């Protein structure tokens, strides 16, 4: 398994600087999972800004907030677990 990182972001646009740190820390092969209030980044409005990053969004949190993920893969809790397995470490940006 290659040495990659799953970045988990749970805050939305109020904490844009947090997203910036997350993106600065993102290396080739990493993944970025939006959860909780972070799922707002998964909306159409931010799609272009995030197009070079391998992004995922957690379904229960999208549903709760009435947001549709635009062009990024959605995962359920089991998928969240799989992402953690597939990457050697996780970093929660919180």
């Amino acid at each position: 398994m290659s040495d990659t990182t799953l970045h988990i972001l749970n805050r939305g646009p109020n904490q844009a600087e947090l997203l910036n740190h997350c993106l600065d820390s993102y290396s080739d092969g990493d993944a970025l999972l939006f959860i909780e209030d972070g799922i707002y980044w998964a909306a159409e409005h931010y799609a272009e800004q995030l197009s070079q990053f391998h992004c995922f969004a957690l379904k229960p949190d999208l549903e709760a907030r009435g947001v549709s993920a635009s062009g990024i893969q959605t995962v359920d809790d089991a998928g969240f677990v799989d992402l953690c397995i597939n990457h050697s470490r996780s970093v929660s940006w919180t």
Partner: protein
Amino acid sequence: MKHFLIIARQAPYGSAAAREALELALACALFDQPVSLLLLDDACFQLLPEHKPAAIQQKNLAAMQQSLPLYDVEKIYICEKSMHQRGLQPELLSLEVVPLDAAGMKKLIREHEVVINV
């Protein structure tokens, strides 16, 4: 044995965050795990010299910070951009720091198996 990276983002004294990040870093060192500390955003202010928190009835963070080198945590990493945004220079800070740009942050994360944003 794992390499721990503790990331702090909060200013000192306004919340327990700064102290609790330092406590975790020290705990890693005490239990013989190599640990690095990375300061982002307002956490850069933790290294301003001359804290006098007696006026707000809190313990001085400096005592904990000064014990970091004693536990082999010799390098404090700091986000270059966060420092500049806040008008801070490494020379003015109370401990020796290693400023990092984005490439440096990517590399630092890859060098640690356990990364905890406190």
